[in-house]
């Protein structure tokens, strides 16, 4: 077997997955192990991809979403700095949106209070009117 490659049973042992899972990932074109006859050989890159796939699954992402992300980040290192930058600005934007949401929620509560006060006030007023007209 070529250097740095692992067999399917080695990969299963390493990642705690079944052979069936690995064959399925290959069938849906998430993994591309080398073939030698009927034997599958997994390179370090295949195993790195598998790490990401399994992590994505743990976080509840669909296999289709995972495939798209893997395709996008296939280029590796070059993009990492850019992605970090994107994550930074997106995280800042997220904080802004959460502040905005908190402000909006507060405003909604205040306005609801104002409306309820208005409704109560009208009700009291109506009662007083009625009391005055009958008394």
């Amino acid at each position, binding site marked *: 077997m070529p250097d740095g490659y692992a067999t399917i049973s080695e990969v299963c042992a390493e990642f705690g997955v079944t052979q069936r899972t690995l064959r399925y990932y290959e069938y849906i074109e998430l993994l591309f192990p080398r073939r030698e006859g009927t034997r599958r050989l997994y390179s370090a890159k295949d195993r790195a991809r598998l790490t990401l796939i399994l992590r994505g699954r743990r976080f509840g992402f669909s296999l289709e979403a995972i495939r798209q992300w893997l395709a996008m*980040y296939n280029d590796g290192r070059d993009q990492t700095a850019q992605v970090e930058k994107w994550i930074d600005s997106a995280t800042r934007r997220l904080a802004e949106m959460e502040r905005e949401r908190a402000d909006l929620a507060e405003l909604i509560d205040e306005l609801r209070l104002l409306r309820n006060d208005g409704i109560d006030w009208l009700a009291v007023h109506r009662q007083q009117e009625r009391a005055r007209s009958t008394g």
Partner: protein
Amino acid sequence: MAASDIERPHASIGDLCREFDVTPRTLRFYEDKGLIAPRRDGQRRLYTSRDRARIRLILQGRRFGFALDEMRELLDLYDIGDQGRTQARRVIEHAERRLAEMEAQRSELDTAIRELRTLIAERRIFAEPQATN
């Protein structure tokens, strides 16, 4: 004019700007739109306590997103002499409408926040440099 207006010294535009934390431009704008009508002493504007109360309501309404036209209508209803009943009813109507709009806005914001969170999580997970061989 109410007696208190005569007795109490009128506030200047600077006084009200400090009190409400707004610019003179804002107050002049409300005046242009006919929402307030301060008296004039030559060039100087003099604001009564009634003007002040109207400004307070305008700013509150603006915060809730009421349009200026709506605010003018609500303010004018104070003077129709039914002890504010029509005014209260209209305030409730406008509040209901704005509440519905703001709640829709909030749920849009919720969706956007959820989506952005997912996107960030995805990128964190998949942005790791993948080993090459």
